[in-house]
């Protein structure tokens, strides 16, 4: 492959990165890099580094690369070359400017979506390598401001959005009251020990999108599910600490989540429509703690809706009439294998489903995932311009009739919203629960 060319345009200014690199010395940097490489990585990193033949076959997988006229700067292997390889080659002796660039590449030009791992003949997981870079960036204190603030929120409140201890149960009680105007006997049972299911969400729901909790409460009520939501810490399943490389906070979050479910003696945890949280509870957070698998079964909302529909526990009154297209969130489809169930749910709900191409585990990332959207406004255009291929994919689906875009993931939702808006695509974006809530049979209002 060719050498990476310099990225066009001025690099965004980020207060977290700028303040982080000021005062860093080459010695400090080398010490942190070598400490992480020597003590925290093992055979996996060595195998990846030794195996890669620099063939560049992974390039065609990456939406950043494809959206930037195949600029090698954005190719998966190019990102490793500009960051980790150089750190290894120089035995950690790189300067602050290098670290700044590495922080920008690892945090804002890679969604950790793992699409490239499918294209590498050796299955090299570039996302893992970018996470090693992010761990180094964390240890150096150079994490971008917005996502660092989110990690701080996690560390204090065990949720993503600084939601305070009282605000959480208060919000649930407010949503319960709202929903009781529609179904007078509806409950959002708080801290109900021995319920079958604990439902957990991410903090943007109580903060900005409380209607999603309302909708799920209605679905749970109609389906007659014995469920609960915790009134204590542990209700939030999200995890930006996983993406800042703050593994210790990631572990604390997941421990709190699973121990809360255990305190409530539930059989399963059902989680809302979120992708990165699934990766955290199902793969990364649990394993950092020593659990090979989730200690309490963890069911993504797609899977749960599929179960309710196929068991007839919720019934469709009238299918959603508008043609829909589906975005496959990387973490639950490529990472969690829920692609077919997502389609079965979509077909059960909607008259017409227009497939995007490529799809299922080959779908392009939304470019918001992997914590990129959480790096905030300074990098908004990095991810939007870095995903022109997604815009083309969406536009093609629209041309074939799609009017609504279903995406069962919060980050995808927000990221695709920006893409739809920027490229003027004109698709309405919905969660599955938005549609289910509209079309299921509900008890008649009294």
């Amino acid at each position, binding site marked *: 492959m060719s050498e990476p060319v310099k990225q066009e345009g001025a690099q965004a200014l980020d207060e977290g990165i700028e303040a982080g690199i000021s005062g860093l010395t080459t010695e400090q940097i080398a010490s942190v890099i070598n400490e992480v490489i020597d003590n925290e990585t093992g055979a996996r990193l060595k195998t990846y580094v030794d195996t890669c033949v620099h063939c560049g076959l992974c390039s065609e997988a990456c939406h950043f690369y494809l959206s930037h006229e195949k600029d090698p700067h954005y190719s998966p292997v190019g990102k490793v070359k500009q960051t980790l390889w150089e750190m290894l080659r120089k035995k950690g002796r790189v300067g602050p400017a290098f670290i700044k660039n590495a922080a920008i590449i690892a945090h804002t030009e890679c969604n950790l979506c793992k699409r490239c791992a499918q294209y590498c003949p050796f299955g090299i997981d570039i996302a893992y390598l970018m996470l090693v870079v992010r761990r180094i960036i964390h240890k150096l*204190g150079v994490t971008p401001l917005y996502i660092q603030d989110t990690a701080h*929120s996690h560390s204090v*409140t065990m949720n993503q959005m600084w939601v305070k201890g*009282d605000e959480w149960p208060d919000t649930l009680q407010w949503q319960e009251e709202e929903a009781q105007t529609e179904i007078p006997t509806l409950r959002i049972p708080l801290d109900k020990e021995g319920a079958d299911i604990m439902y957990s969400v991410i903090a943007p729901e109580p903060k900005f999108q409380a209607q999603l909790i309302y909708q799920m409460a209605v679905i749970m009520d109609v389906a007659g599910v014995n469920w609960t939501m915790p009134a204590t810490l542990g209700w939030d399943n999200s995890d930006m600490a996983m993406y800042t490389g703050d593994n210790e906070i990631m572990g604390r979050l997941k421990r709190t989540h699973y121990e809360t479910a255990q305190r409530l003696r539930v059989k399963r945890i059902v989680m809302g429509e979120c992708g990165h949280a699934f990766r955290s509870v199902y793969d990364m957070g649990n394993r950092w703690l020593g659990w090979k698998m989730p200690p309490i079964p963890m069911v993504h909302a797609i899977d749960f809706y599929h179960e309710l529909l196929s068991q007839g526990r919720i019934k469709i009154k009238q299918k959603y009439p508008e043609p829909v297209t589906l975005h496959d969130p990387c973490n639950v489809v490529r990472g969690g294998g829920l692609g077919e169930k997502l389609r079965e749910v979509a077909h059960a709900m909607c008259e017409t489903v227009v497939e995007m191409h490529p799809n299922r585990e080959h779908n392009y990332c939304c470019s918001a995932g992997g914590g990129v959207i959480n790096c905030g406004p300074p990098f908004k255009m990095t991810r939007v311009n870095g995903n022109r291929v997604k815009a083309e994919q969406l536009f093609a689906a629209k041309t074939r009739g799609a009017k609504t875009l279903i995406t069962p993931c919060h980050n995808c939702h927000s990221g695709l919203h920006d893409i739809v808006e920027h490229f003027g695509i004109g698709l309405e974006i919905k969660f599955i629960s938005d549609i289910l809530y509209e079309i299921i049979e509900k008890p008649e209002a009294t």
Partner: protein
Amino acid sequence: MKGGREWDWEISEKRVAINEWGTSFGWVEEPYASPDGETVAAIVNVAEMEFSVCVNGKAWDVTFDKVWHLRYLPDGRLTALVSEMGEWTAAIDGIAWDSKFGYVWNPLVSEDGQAFAVAAQQDMQYCMVLNGEPWNETFANMTYFALSPCGTKTAAAVQVENAASGEIHKFKKGTFTAALEGKAWESTYVNVWGLAISPDGESLAAEVRQDLYDYTIAVDGKAWDTTFSCVWEPIFRPGTRTVVAPVRTKGQWTLAENGNTLWDRSFVQLWQPIFSPDGNHLAAIVAPAFGRWTVALDGVPWAKTFGDMVTDVVFSSDGKRLAALAKEGRFWKVVVDGKVWSHKFDMAWPPVFSPDNETVAAKVETEGTYAFVVNDRLGPHACEAAWDPVFSPDGNRLLLRSIEDGVYCRRVVPVSDFMP
């Protein structure tokens, strides 16, 4: 749990037809049984947005706009969090505290049930409230909470420096500390978690993060000299002000006492340490290998390990025996002194030792049916709901509280009924 001497321990059965309550109320929420089993209570909807609590078929005289978190205290009093005219407080046996707040949550109860505390918010300021008495000091945020074992003191992790969302550099300087009875430590930390108050109520310990990377335990505002890459919540050695906590170094977990390593081996994971009542033994949940879990007693893990989860470690009162729950695949098992009972369950509740520590009982559930198991023998009752079994003071009888065919049932049975 051991029952009171004054309770009715006659071999008998008492019933309350809770399934009839539905006719009197809009709806009846999940029931709770009193420790002595004599009463059963549930939150009931009496009119639109009007709630009360029904006890043995009779509702409290008062109603509230909202009632939640109904629980019996160990001394038999019945508590709930209630709201009226937009203000929140706790009510005990239907009598609300005089002090009212913008919100109350996270109730804490002392072992004897005499002390009942909640976290409270008023005008976006936070404090603890013990038996209706709020702290004099309030804070901009309050996260982790504790009540002393003696029930006389409360503590919380509190925010003492303002840092608006997004002020990451200010936050990193330390904006949190811990407060005992409202008195905040002078030292501040990036984070404060997992608090514990000493048995005498005088000393407070907490997990702290000093910067983004260094974790340790702070006691009364002074951090241990040693730092670690992570720590979990501290506990006090019974009868002392000595603090023990799980600590992580070089990717492995062990226990430390006052900053010094206590056990000579380390684990992939170690948490929830617990002392025997006499303080002579120390146990913890450990993972000796990735994905394998068990209990370690004084540093030595049980030979038998489990794939999914180990929880609810309990010492016998003499400190000589140890029981826990373990999950392998989808089933839970009871494990006593490292030996696994033969029965497996969809769910199990903490094991209970008899007063002479010879017998172990637990509430269990399989496919939605609850039952009691004693020394690995399953009882005959198939219940819709159940509460933890309680031994009589002489250890010969068991109080079993359950719901069967919609009827609450208080049963006293001889322990020998469960024996071969």
